[in-house]
Every structure is written in C-alpha cells, then in structure tokens.
C-alpha cells in the first residue's frame, strides 16, 4: 500500500488548485501584501464554506471531515505552491492540533466548531517548545511576552501555553481584546506570513487543559509536518518557474534550458523536490497511523525539506538571472517564504540532532 496521497486527496487537490488560481492569483497576492491584515477574510470564508478547508482536522460530529494528515498535507502543499496568504498554519496546523491533542472532548467541541466555521486561531508561547514556555499563569492571569506569534494580530481565538504557578505548562485561552493584552505586528522577512509580538500583563485567562506540555509539543510536531508539506509545494512551484523560464529565455541563439549547466541544475531541483515529497508524505502517513511517530518523523523531515526548499528557491533566482533579483518578480517571495520557514520551528541542525537522539544514533 502506497504512502502517497490517495485518490480522494488528489481530487481535493484539483479543486483547491482551481480555486486558488481563480481567487488567490498573483495580483491578489500582491494586493494582500499591502494590507494590514495578513489574509483575505472573503477568501478564507469561501475556502471554509465551499471546500471545507477549515474543518479538515475537525471530527465529523462537529461538522468537520477529519480527513487525516495525508489529505491535510495535500492542502498545505497547494497553499505553499500558490504562496497563499492565509492563517492556515496557525489555525489548522497549530491551534487545531493543540486543541485536539490537549483538550477533553467537551472543552474542545466549541473551539473546533468555531474553527470549522472560519474562526482564525493561533497558539502563543515563549520558548523553543510549548512545554518550555516562559509565559506564567499566576492564579487566573497570564504575564510575560510571546515574542513571535503566528498570525497573532488576526487570531480571534487566542490559545496560550503558560506555566501554571511555576509548575507544569497548561493550555489557556485569552480574549484577544482583554485588558493587559498588547499585540504588536512585526516586520517579517517573509511578508506573506504575519507574526506578532504579544505582551501579557496579568491578562485574565481560562484554563483549557492542565499539564499539557507534552500534548502541545506533539501539536507543534504536527504543525511542523504540515509546514513541511507547504514547503514541498513551494519548492515544486519554484522548480516550475525555473523550468518555464529556462524554456523561454534565449541566449547564444538557443533556450538556456538546452545548456547542460542550466538543465542539470533544474534536474537537481527536481530531485530535491521529489525526495522531499517522498519524505513528507511518508511522514504524514506514518503519523496518521501512529501519532507517537510524529516526533521522530517531524525531526527527520524538517532539516531535509527546509534546506531543499531554500536551495530550490535560491536556484530559481539564479536561473532567472537579473530579473529574478527584482522586487517585481515573485522569485524573492518564495525565497523569503523558504528562508523564514526554515527558521520557523527550530533550525535544520537542531532538527537533525533531535532526530539523531530519537533514533538512538547519538548514544
């Protein structure tokens, strides 16, 4: 049985690609970058209503389709391919995973139902892993600084990993407009993905799940796997861009793609993309079958896929030559997405050393 996505997932891919081509094309992408908000609420709602994208990780009894990680991987791949500006990684990758991993069914239900109908959500913490979050919950109020929160300004459902009275880390919820909460949008390297700094000054919080550190780390591993699928989509798109250009750009009387120096560089990009795709979909398949596999799979996948995307995005600029270095060309948007995604959930080297430890290679 293949670990690659099945027929249903591929059908969803076809629909989604058409949808994104129509509603989230290059012109709209550029317009979005100039707005205060990181996403187009219209597009988000339509994607939720027409394609059910927001409910893919929600159980069926709450109105979702619980499609599984492989199918989600296909969606992330397409979003990464189109460089869609949408809080999907924060809402589905992080927040939904956190709620499903940490919360009991009754606590989770209203939040998952809200996400399914289009509520934007995110998870804030301070530190490398949520289980090590330095945010403090003293009594019922959170204090501290979450320096880098994905879609922190757009989130309507704000989840926080905070250390409870100096003990274990719990999952809490705060109201985005609560007193003592300050959300500051940041200038991000990757302008297609927004991040905020959130200052908590004794912000009233509701406890959702106590002693949730391990569950939230698991949620981060799931988010990292889905991010990897998004990275594969971006890498695949820059390969297409490079090939299209190499076919049409004429120098020395022939298309530059007919020269082996350029052709072999494109072939190396193809190899990176397909190897990354094998790793990612195998990892999603494995984590679908056994959630306990997510830690090792995400550690294994992250380094390779992150580095491959950066390499492909840079090669795309090189193959385009001067035009690839301009603001007007989209090549830099992909490069910045690639470089930022590489740094988003820990470095490639950190992931590799973690994988070595989990595999028992380093002992």
């Amino acid at each position, binding site marked *: 049985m293949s670990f690659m996505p099945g027929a249903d997932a591929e059908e969803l891919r076809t629909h989604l690609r058409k949808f994104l081509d129509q509603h989230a094309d290059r012109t709209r992408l550029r317009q979005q970058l100039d707005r205060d908000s990181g996403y187009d609420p219209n597009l988000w709602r339509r994607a939720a209503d027409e394609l059910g994208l927001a409910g893919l990780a929600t159980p069926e009894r709450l109105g979702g389709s619980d499609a599984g990680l492989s199918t989600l991987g296909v969606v992330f791949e397409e979003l990464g391919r189109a460089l869609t500006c949408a809080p999907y990684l924060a809402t589905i990758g992080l927040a939904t995973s956190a709620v499903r991993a940490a919360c009991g069914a009754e606590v989770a239900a209203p939040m998952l139902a809200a996400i399914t109908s289009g509520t934007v959500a995110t998870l804030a913490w301070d530190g490398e892993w949520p289980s090590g979050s330095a945010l403090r919950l003293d009594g019922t109020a959170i204090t501290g600084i979450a320096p880098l929160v994905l879609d922190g300004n757009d989130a309507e459902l704000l989840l926080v990993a905070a250390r409870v009275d100096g003990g274990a880390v719990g999952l809490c919820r705060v109201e985005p407009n609560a007193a003592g909460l300050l959300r500051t949008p940041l200038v991000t390297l990757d302008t297609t993905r927004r991040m905020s700094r959130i200052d908590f000054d004794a912000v009233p919080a509701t406890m959702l799940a106590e002693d949730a550190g391990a569950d939230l780390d698991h949620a981060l591993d799931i988010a990292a796997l889905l991010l990897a699928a998004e990275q594969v989509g971006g890498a695949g798109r820059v390969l297409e861009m490079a090939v299209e250009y190499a*076919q049409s750009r004429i120098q020395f009387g022939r298309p530059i793609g007919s*020269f082996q120096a*350029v052709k072999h560089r494109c072939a190396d990009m193809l190899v990176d993309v397909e*190897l990354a795709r094998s790793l990612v979909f195998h990892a999603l398949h494995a984590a679908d079958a056994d959630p306990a596999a997510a830690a090792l799979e995400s550690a*294994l996948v992250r380094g*390779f896929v992150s580095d491959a995307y950066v390499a492909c995005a840079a090669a795309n600029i090189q193959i385009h030559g001067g035009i690839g270095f301009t603001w007007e060309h989209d090549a830099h948007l992909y490069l910045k997405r690639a470089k930022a995604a590489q740094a988003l959930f820990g470095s490639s080297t950190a992931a590799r050393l973690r994988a070595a430890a989990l*595999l028992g*290679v380093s002992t």
Partner: protein
Amino acid sequence: MSRATEAATEAAEAFLGEHPVGPTSDQEQRGARFDAGLAIVHFDTGSGGRGWDAGEQPAVDEVFLRAGCPDWSARNVIGLGMAAPTIHAHGTEQQRRRHLRPLFTGEDIWCQLFSEPGAGSDLAALATRAVRVEGGWRVSGQKVWTTLAHVARWGLLLARTDPEQPKHRGLTYFVLDMRSAGVDVRPLRQLTGEAEFNEVYLDDVFVPDDAVLGEVGGGWQVAMTTLMNERVSLGGRPAERGSGAVGQLVAVLRQARAAGRAGDAELDRVMRLWARAEAARLTNIRAGEQLRRGTPGPEGSIAKLQMAESNNPVYDHSMELLGTQALLYRDYTETRPDFAAVHGGSGDVRYDYLRSLANSIEGGTSEVLRTVLGERVLGLPPEPRPDKDTPWASLRRS
C-alpha cells in the same frame, strides 16, 4: 495495512503453511512459489503472478524472508531486476514459459549484454552486429561491464541488425544462450581488486529466430523497459529504514563517538546523509510502484541518481570516521564473486567505499540521468543532436 495487503500476507503465509522451509530444497520451494503465483505478484497468472497490484509485492517478499527463505536479489540481480520484467512485457507466451520459472528459482542466472567499449552512455551507438542467416542470426562483437556473465546461463543482448538506419532504429533485442559456441567470457578486474564484471566476446554466435524479443528493428523500445527497470533496481531494494549503507555509517559513528573522535558536527553530517538516504529509499519505493503499475514516472531516474549520489558520500564519510583504519585494506587478491551487491553492505567500509565509486557510472551516469530528467521529465529543450537522424554507419565513433 490495507485489505489487499492483508490478503497478500495471508496468501503468502498460507503457502508457507503448505510448503514450509526445510523439507524441500530452496529451488523446489521457489518453483512451487512461482506456480502459486506468489513470485512476482503483478505478473499474469501462469507467469509467476496473480495480476495483483504491484504494491503488494513487498508484503509478500517480507513473509518469505522472515520465514528464512534465501534472498536471491544479489545472486540473480539482472534476472530478477531486469530480465523478468522485460520478458513479461515483450516476450511471446513460449518465451515466458521457457524463461520465467527457472529465472525465478535461481536455476538460470542472467546477465545483460548492452554496453560496449565504444558505446557507454551513448548505448544506441553500439556496434555488435547481428546478420541474418538461415533460421536465425549470426552475432559478432564485444560487450563489456557484464555483471555475472561468468555464471550466467542467459544474456539480454542488444545488437545492430540494420546499420543503414539511424542508430535507435536498427537495433534488435535477443535472448542469448551463454553456452552457445563463440561466446567467450573474460574477467574484467576493477579497482576494488576483484572481477565482478566481465568482457564478453561474441564471435559468429548463432542465435535462433525464436530468441528475438519483440520486433526485429524494435530493440530500442524493448531495451527501454530493461533500462527503466534497471534504474529502479539500482535505485535500491525497498530495504528497511536505516539499514544498508546508512546502518553501517551509524555503526562507524558510534565507534568514533566511543573513541572520542566525533562530536555534534559529525552527528549533524551523519543525519544529513541519513535523511537523504531515507528520502532516496522512499522515492525508490514510489518508483517501484509506478513502474510495476505500468506508469513509470520520473521517480526511477531520480531514485537511481540519488542512490548513487547518496551512497558514495555515506561511505566517504564512514571512511573519515574510521580514522587510521581507513589506511588499510582487506585484500586485493583477484576474485570472481557470484553475486552483485552494488550498494555495498559487505560489512567492510573500505571495500564498500571503493565499490560506491561505480554507483554514479553503472546503469546510466549521473550526468546522463540529469539530462534525462531535464529533457524527458521537465521538458527542457534537448542539446543539438547531430547523430540522431544520421544512418549509424556514417556516424563518428571512438
């Protein structure tokens, strides 16, 4: 596990219940396995298969390997990896009946007579001639890099039947009886010291008409089937995660760490190699599924390229981790092994390192494969090719 995979596993286990390992010889047992359609499961019924989805093969193989059945993949690497799929795809009913069963049982070892001294990467330029005679053909020429020719019963032979045609069009594919008069197999010693390959001289060898595989003049199309299977086969077997070359690398790393010779920098490098090898392994599994379903995608060439490009660095780094042990070698005495373990795994990193230098040459050089990927998969424009439409007889050759 899918229902089909469960059924495949159950069928293999039921077969082993009736034909346990031990009482009969391995060859007899493999014969019975072939007759039961559990040899190459996507092949037709009667040809060693059951017409199943190719994706079920690994589950079946695993049942047999776990039960202690010997693994034949290195001893009959050409037979199982290339001859079987080529004969199944292009052979007549008679050719299938004659060759597939003894190939699978191990009774017949196969070799591949493609490359020549003057036709390496440019295989279609080959010069071995087959001339029509009463009842068949007379073949003369020289083949090279012929793995296992010294133990082979049969050879997959590509020869030129019409020199006036452009090079791809004048070729015919034959199944050659290696015991025919005029076949001379000579060892070809390689840089590891051993003679795993051979040179094969063909001097006026008679090949009967019923040994033609496919159409006369249609040899290139048949050869494509062989080459695509070769790439998947050389891309590596779907072994277990972390086994093979990277398994050795990890073992060497552990020794080096115990001796205080490897820190986080070495660990990071090992994990880079590990992840790439794992990605190549998974891509080859995809390639195998695609190929056996009859829809070969780019994965075969990718997997072959990657196995070569990752295997050598894995052993290269293993050598570095060996420290002063890398200064020594086990033995350069010339031997003629009767198996081909192209990806190493011999247990001796120094030998495997030297052997891995061939990985980026055998079965298509990495340079040729990059061009194949660029042109056939990505659709990039070809290099100017003055040789393509010229009659072979007028081509410049080395």
